[in-house]
Each structure stands twice: as C-alpha cells, then as structure tokens.
C-alpha cells in the first residue's frame, strides 16, 4: 500500500468519531429514501400480484334480482373479458360474547369449474361440500377477531331464519382487504365479516334459483370502462341495479389505494427532505474538515504532488466516508423496508403473499445525491486549498484578523471576560460558518418538528371528529329506509339517553366534467350528537335548502359556494336534481356532503324516511340495549364510536405511524450527527489555539467554555429558527397528505416543539460533553509539537 493510502486510512481512523457521525447522517438520509420507496414499491407489486392472481374484478354492480340468462347479455358488452355473477346478501351473525349485532356479508362461492372473479384464498381448512348447505368459510380478519377456527360454529340469521353454520375454512379476499360494513366509514373486523357459502345453499335461502343479484366484470386492456359501466347500468336497470362502479369506488380498493397514496405522499416529501438536509450538512462539514487540512495540502504540494493527486487523495477520504454511509443506508433502508413491508402486509393489509422489490434507481439516486453532495463539498474546499501557493498554504495559518467590532464601539465589551469576547469575536469573524452551523442545527430541529407534528395532527383530527363532531356513542343502520316513527321506538329502548335521526342516500355528484360517488347525509337543523362544525368548532345549523360540502369533496368537484351541483341519486326512484352549494365546511375524515333531512326527503320524493339513528347510550345499559337491537329485524347493524376510533387508530393512523416512527428516529440521529460534527470540527479548527490557552494558564473549564459557549449560542439561535422551518415543512406535508379519506389538519402542539428542541439540546449537550472530554485530555505538548 502506498504511503498516501496508508495516510488516508490512518486519518480516517483518527477522525473515526466524526466520520461515523457523518456516515450516520448520510445513512439516515439514504435509508429513509430506500425504506420509504422500497416499502411502497413492494406493497404495490404485492397488491397488484394479489389482484392478478385472484382475478380482482374491474367493474362491480349490485342489483335486486336478475335471471341467469342476463349474464350472456352482459358478456356481450364490448370490452368485457369475463363475467362473474354471484349472490351477495346480508345476514346477522351471533357471535358468543358480543352484545352488539354483528353483520355478515354472505357471498356465494362459484360452482365447481366456473370462471370466478374476486377469488378468495383459502388460508385454512377446505371448501364447503356442495351437499352440505350449512358449511361456510369465514374471512380471516373476522375469524381472527373472534378467535374462530375451522370446526367452530356460528349462529346466523339468514333471511329471517336462524341457522347454525359450520366453519370449514378461513379465507382472504382481494375484494375485502378492508371489510367495511354498510353505513360506517372504518373497517371493523369485530362487527363486520365476510361469509362464503355454496351457491346452491344461498340460492335456496334467498329464493334466487337460476338468478343472481351481484355482478363482477373483468375488462380487456383496451376497454372503455365508463362505456362498459353505462351499458351495464342499462342492462341492470330493469332488474333493480343500483349503479355499477369501477375499482376506484370499490371501497376496499379505495381504502388500500388511499393508504398507499398517503405513504407515497409521505415518501415523496420526507425522505427527499432528509436526504437534502443530510447532503447539505455533509457538504458543510466536509468542506470544513478539508479546510483544516490546508497545511498538509501545502506540504504535499511542496513535495511535488500535483493538484490532481492531492485532490484525489482528499476526495478518496470523503468518498470513503460517504460510501460507508451510503452502504449503511442501503442495508438499513432495505432491512427496515422489508420489516416495515412485512408489518404492513401482515397487520394492515393482510396480503396472503408478499413480494419485495427495491428499485435500483432509487438506490442509485439516493447514493448519487449523497456522493455528489460530499464530493462537491470536498471539491470546493480542496480547490481553494490547492490554489494557494504551497508557501502560503503551509504557513501555520496566519493569525486571523479580528475586529474590535460593534460591542467595543458601544462600550459593551467592558463587562465581558476575555473568553466571552473571544467567542463573540470568533462568531463575528466567521459569520458564514456560524450561519451554516446554525442552519444545520435548525434543520435538525425542523425535521423533528415536521415528523412529530403528524401525531398532533392525528390527535387533533380524532378529537374534532369524535368529540366535537360525531358525539354519538352508536349509530344504528336500518336495512331499509323507515319512517321517522322507528326512531321513537328505538328511543324508548333501555339505555338510550338521546336519539337523532339521519337519512343517508347513495349519490353521484356531477359538476362540470367532474363526478364523484358518495352519499348525502340528511340531518335535522339543531343537532346535538352528529354536528356539522365550522372552522372554529362551532356547530352550524344546516341551511333549509341546498347542499353543504366538506372541503375535501368541494376540492374534488372543484365546487364553490353558490355553484349548482347535479345530484344523481343511486337508490329509490333515482331522481336527478341540480342543487346549489350553500356552504362548505371543514371535515377531516372522509368527504361527506350534508343536507337538511327534510330537504333530502323532498329531493327523494319520499315521506319522512330515515336510514338510521344516532344514539347516546348509558354505558350501564349498553349490553342490554345492543342485545335488544340484535333481535330487531329492521336493524341491519350498529356501529360503535369507540370501535370506529379504535379502528381509525389501528388502520389509518398506524399506516403512517410506522413510517413516522422511523422518520423520527432518523431525524433524531441526523440531529445528533450534525451537532456532534459541528462541535468536532470547531475543535479541530481551533485545537491549537485552545491548547495554547491552556499552556498560558487557562483552566480546562475556561477553555471548554470558549468552544462550548460558541456551540451553545449557535444552538440557541438555531432552536427557534428550526421551529419556524419545521412549521414550513409541516405545511408542505399537510398540503400533500390530503386524500379522499382524510385530511391532515395543520396543528403543531407545543409539546412537539418542546420535544424537538429538547432532542437537539440533548444532542448538543452530549456532543459538548464528548468535546469537553477531549479538551480535558488535550495532550498539550503533542498539540503544540505536531498538527492536529
């Protein structure tokens, strides 16, 4: 090995602490990118492969009843590849230990040998025997929620008849990655489950022999989906079709797509910021390190090493450190990415298989950015060092010119000690260096604020939604719209403290070229349970006419107050009416639309019908109440707010929390890396000066004070600055994270600022201590004899 390379390795070893800190910062930047995009990529290909293998349909439609012969007519629609007709019905399930009603969705299994779409994956047990009508398969999340296994039995009320079903298998379905019951907005695996049964058994139970009530289509690549949907709607209209829809409106798919979109937005914002911050820090630190090597550069040039050789030498040092960081980042990123993907796949999405893919381009981009940042940082510093004539470069850096400055002129310096003056003069002499260090530390604060704020935002959102907006304890959903009198009945049940009716209608809203499927919720004017809130969290009374849109829906339709939206009702007599938007309200979850219930009834051309009731329940009697409701045939289901809150935390929030956990972790590491490096570089820049002070008789404390005092000042300036940057980053995140399913409010709790700043303060203190220990152990003789 050449002496030069040996020097390289020894130098590297000498600055190993710093090199490690730099490599850590790079690794954090790189691994965030690799992890985020790797996870996303893996989840997407896993989902797509799952869809592909299980033949997830492209178009879905539900209807009342159609004869089997209609199937051929549907198959003839241009662009349809295959048609699957099924029987899909609701049933009440009775699970031991559950007071509340549990809703089941019964789905007929395809006949043996038939081409089926939306195929379930059998996870345990077997398929039902065609000769045994009571055999059934349960969906895995539901079975898991209740601890049910093949061999167990459950009670079900099917079309009014109580039956005992034998569980023979457990399955997963691409159609129900998230199983969301009617009338609720969140998946709740305890209260809603999928049950597959034999086609014959179901046909017999629901009187649908040689008939079907549900269609799925897969389309050819070239097909015009909206044309297919239009034609399918025409064919099914006479048979009670309620509107076909594509994947985008298939609720499970929409949910999954939404979560992935959220991950993608998060991934598009945070990792690049991390990488940029890491690159910036790298650049600053590297150029400072090179600058301290000025004399050595001059010496090598004096021996006849060319600028190129010297440049390459230092570049090697820098790139070696960077390469270690990048490699570490790849490893950690791929490892975490895999772990996180598994977490998502198992806990949240329940994919039966899992594919990993880490895009080489992402690796290359992350590595390239890091190498370029450090290379450029080094090159700049190397260039200015090699451009000096060796005689100048080698001079033990000429005493820096300091000025007496403002303080002196103002006469303020009198009371200050010499060390304090040294700190202030040093800062004043190197304002850019001080500025960059401050900027670096503040970036660390900002990253933490922008990662942590998300937890505040979600808490705030939940608080608004569940404690200010939807204050009911339970929502009762009727199987069919019923007269308002039904509410009075329910209101008299034991434990009901307050009841409020609502009417929900499935609609398609059109404005200009845009249209969105959704529902309009009709509420009474003065409500106390489900309230519509304005920005200041005050309940607003719905206007007597017109439509109230949530911000999200208004954005999706590009609607503003006063515009007329075309409402196409998808149930009942299916009226189509133009309704003006009378106001827009902020809602963070879903994208609801509201009307006065009376106005909605009028629009529907119906009497005083309601779809269900919101209840406030005395928790002492809740068990009794739910058992009662379970026995009520008109009640399709009951959803509980506490369960909704839980599932919200478990699904939506969890998805992001897992990622955010890593972001916070990496953010903290970056903070530590930055501060430590700043301290260490200052130490090597000023080691000789400080050692000389020690020789002159200054105590260790005094000397440490000079260095650490400077770091303290820079950190103190950086803290508020970092909070401001953090707010800015949070704003960027908020505007990118809004999706149909939830909007992120711009809320940063004081605790978030506090934790972010404390983390950085702790990092500063720890770095300060390390540096202080080095100052204490200064070998005064060695420092003066050789160069650091």
């Amino acid at each position, binding site marked *: 090995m*050449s*002496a*030069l390379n*040996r*020097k390289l390795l*020894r*130098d590297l070893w*000498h600055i190993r602490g710093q090199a490690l800190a730099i490599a850590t910062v790079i690794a954090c930047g790189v691994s965030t990118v690799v992890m985020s995009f790797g996870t996303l990529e893996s989840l997407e290909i896993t989902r797509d492969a799952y869809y592909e293998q299980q033949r997830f349909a492209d178009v879905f439609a539900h209807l009342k009843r159609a004869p089997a012969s209609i199937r051929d007519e549907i198959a003839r629609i241009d662009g349809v590849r295959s048609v699957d007709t099924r029987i899909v019905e609701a049933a009440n399930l009775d699970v031991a230990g559950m007071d509340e009603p549990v809703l089941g969705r019964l789905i007929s299994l395809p006949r043996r040998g038939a081409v089926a779409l939306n195929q379930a994956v059998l996870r345990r047990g077997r398929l039902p025997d065609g000769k045994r009508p009571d055999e059934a398969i349960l969906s895995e999340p539901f079975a898991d929620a209740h601890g049910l296994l093949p061999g167990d039995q459950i009670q079900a009320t099917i079309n009014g008849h109580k039956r005992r079903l034998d569980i023979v298998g457990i399955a997963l379905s691409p159609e129900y990655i998230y199983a969301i019951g009617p009338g609720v907005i969140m998946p709740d695996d305890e209260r809603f489950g999928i049950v597959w049964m034999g086609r014959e058994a179901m046909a017999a139970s629901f009187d649908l022999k040689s008939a079907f009530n549900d269609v799925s289509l897969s389309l050819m690549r070239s097909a015009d989906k909206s044309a297919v949907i239009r034609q399918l709607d025409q064919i099914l209209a006479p048979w009670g079709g309620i509107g076909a829809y594509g994947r985008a409106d298939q609720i499970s798919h929409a949910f999954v797509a939404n979560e992935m979109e959220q991950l993608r937005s998060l991934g598009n914002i945070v990792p690049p910021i991390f990488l940029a911050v890491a690159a910036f820090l790298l650049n600053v630190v590297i150029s400072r390190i090179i600058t301290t090597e000025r*004399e*050595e550069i001059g*010496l*090598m*040039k*004096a*021996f*006849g*090493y*060319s*600028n190129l*050789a010297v440049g390459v030498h230092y570049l090697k040092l820098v790139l070696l450190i960077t390469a270690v960081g990048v490699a570490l980042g790849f490893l950690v990123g791929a490892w975490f990415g895999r772990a996180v993907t598994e977490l998502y796949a198992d806990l949240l999405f329940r994919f039966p298989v899992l594919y990993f893919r880490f895009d080489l381009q992402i690796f290359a981009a992350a590595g390239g950015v890091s190498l370029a940042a450090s290379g450029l940082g080094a090159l700049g510093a190397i260039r200015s060092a090699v451009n000096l*004539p*060796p*005689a*100048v470069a*080698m001079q*033990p850096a000429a005493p820096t010119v300091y000025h007496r400055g403002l303080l002196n002129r103002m006469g303020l310096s009198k009371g200050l000690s010499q060390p304090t003056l040294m700190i202030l003069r040093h800062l004043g002499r190197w304002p850019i260096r001080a500025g960059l260090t401050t900027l670096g530390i503040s970036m660390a604060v900002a990253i933490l604020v922008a990662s942590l704020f998300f937890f505040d935002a979600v808490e705030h959102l939940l608080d608004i939604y569940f404690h200010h907006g939807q204050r009911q304890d339970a929502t009762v959903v009727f199987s069919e719209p019923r007269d308002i009198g039904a509410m009075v009945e329910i209101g008299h049940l034991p434990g009901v403290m307050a009841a409020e009716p609502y009417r929900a209608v499935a609609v398609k809203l059109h404005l200009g070229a845009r249209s969105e499927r959704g529902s309009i919720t009709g509420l009474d004017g003065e409500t106390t349970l489900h309230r519509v809130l304005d920005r200041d969290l005050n309940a607003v009374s719905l206007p007597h006419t017109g439509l109230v849109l949530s911000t999200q829906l208004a954005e999706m339709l590009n609607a503003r107050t006063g515009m007329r939206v075309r409402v196409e009702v998808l149930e009942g007599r299916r009226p189509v009416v133009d309704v003006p938007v009378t106001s827009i309200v902020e809602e963070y979850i879903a994208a609801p639309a509201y009307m006065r219930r009376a106005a909605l009834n009028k629009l529907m051309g119906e009497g005083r019908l309601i779809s269900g009731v919101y209840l406030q329940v005395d928790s002492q009697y809740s068990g009794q109440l739910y058992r009662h409701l379970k026995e009520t045939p008109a009640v399709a289901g009951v959803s509980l707010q506490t369960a909704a809150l839980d599932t919200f935390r478990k699904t939506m929030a969890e998805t992001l929390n897992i990622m955010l956990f890593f972001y916070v972790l990496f953010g903290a590491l970056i903070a530590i890396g930055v501060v430590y490096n700043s301290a260490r570089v200052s130490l090597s820049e000023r080691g000789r000066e400080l050692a000389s002070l020690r020789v002159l008789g200054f105590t260790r404390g005094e000397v440490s004070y000079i260095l650490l005092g400077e770091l303290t000042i820079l950190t103190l300036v950086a803290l508020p600055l970092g909070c401001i940057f953090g707010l800015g980053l949070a704003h960027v995140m908020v505007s990118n994270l809004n999706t149909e399913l939830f909007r992120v409010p711009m809320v940063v709790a004081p605790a978030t600022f506090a934790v972010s700043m404390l983390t950085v303060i702790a990092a500063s203190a720890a770095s300060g201590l390390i540096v202080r220990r080095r100052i204490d152990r200064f070998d005064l003789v*060695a420092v003066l*004899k*050789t*160069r*650091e």
Partner: protein
Amino acid sequence: MTRKAADEHVGSPTAFSVRGLTKVYGTGEAEVRALRGINLDLREGELVVLLGPSGSGKSTFLNILGGLDNPTSGTVSFQGQEITALGAGGLTQYRRDHVGFVFQFYNLIPSLTARENVALVTEIAPDPLSPEEALDIVSLSDRIDHFPAQLSGGEQQRVAVARAIAKKPDVLLCDEPTGALDSQTGIGVLEAIEQVNREFGTTAAVITHNAAIADIADRVVIFADGALSEVRVNERKIPAAEVSW
C-alpha cells in the same frame, strides 16, 4: 584543502540564476516589500548559507527558489529553465523532480511513521534512495517505525532531512533546519546535508541565524531588508563536524 573546496565550483554550470527578484505582500498601507530586486547565481554542487536579520526576506527568497511561491517580479532560472514562468503544473513537476525541502518546523505528516513520511516522497520520485537508506544517512535506522509524536524535535528534523534527501534532489533548500535543535543534534542534521551535497553533488541552500554555521558554506549570502547586503566566498570552509556553538 578548504581553499580548494571553495574554488571548486567556480567553473561549474549555473544551477540557479536569479534576476531582479521582488516580492511584495499586501497592498496600500499594509504593503510589505519582502524582496527588492535580488540578483544572484548559484552554481551546481555549491553549498550556500543565507544569513540575515529576521524579516529580511530569506524564507521568501528560498520559497520562490523552491517553486513554493511566486515572485511579484523578476525571474529565477533553474538549469537554464525559467521556473518563474512555469504554471502550477510545471512548478509541481519541478519540485517533484529536482527539489528537496527541510523546514524549520519539520512539517511531518503526523499520521505517518518515519519510514512512511519518507516513502511519501520516494514514491513519486524517479530514482530515489529507499526510505531505509535515507533514514540511515541521518542515523535514524532505529526509529524507523515511530510516529512523529514519538520522536524528539531533533529526530523529527532528521526525518525531515531524510525525506528531503531521499529523492536525491538536485537542490536541497533548508529553512533554519537547526533552529530548534541543540548544537549536537544540529550538527548531525548539518552533516547529513553536507553528505548529500558532497556525494550527490546536490546544490544546497541553508538559511540560518547562526553565524557559526556559515563556516561550512562555500559561499555566504547576507540579506538585509529584502536585498543582498553581502555575498562572500568562504575562505575557510570546514566540515560540519568541526563547527561548534
């Protein structure tokens, strides 16, 4: 014998030819005229000692000879080639092929051992001594694997000399090589310089504040305030071993 030694180089070809060399640092009020039009010829194989008060321009002069710095005006030619006209690349090549330096503050690379510090230079030289040979000349064979921090000042300076002579340079430029050393150690360093000068015919220029050292020179050049106040041939050149202070 000494007389003869002094005359020995009279007929030798010129190594350095310095004409009208000036160096000005800074501008305006802060202007320092470090060199004010120096004219001097150094012959090949000659050993020259530069004397003069502090700040008189000796280091500046030597640095320009060595291609470490550029003059403000004037020319320096080495073996007929005008080095003051060379660019950065040319100067690098010049230093690499012809010049060995010894600095007052040793300037060893702290992370390399004695042997490696020498190797740093021999690796890029065309026909060098081995690091071991070079260190042997300065009698440091037993400290070969020590790091600079583990060597005394005199030992470090001898490593620096070994480093300078290892490439068998055509010129050896030494800026106060004994400034920080006691007389015994200093003499050891001087002997090494003398040996290279004698054995390889290396042209050597040695800056010193110690007038006694002038006795080992063929010629003595005395600086004063950026100019040459006196250039004299040393009538009684004596070996370094016989010098004392």
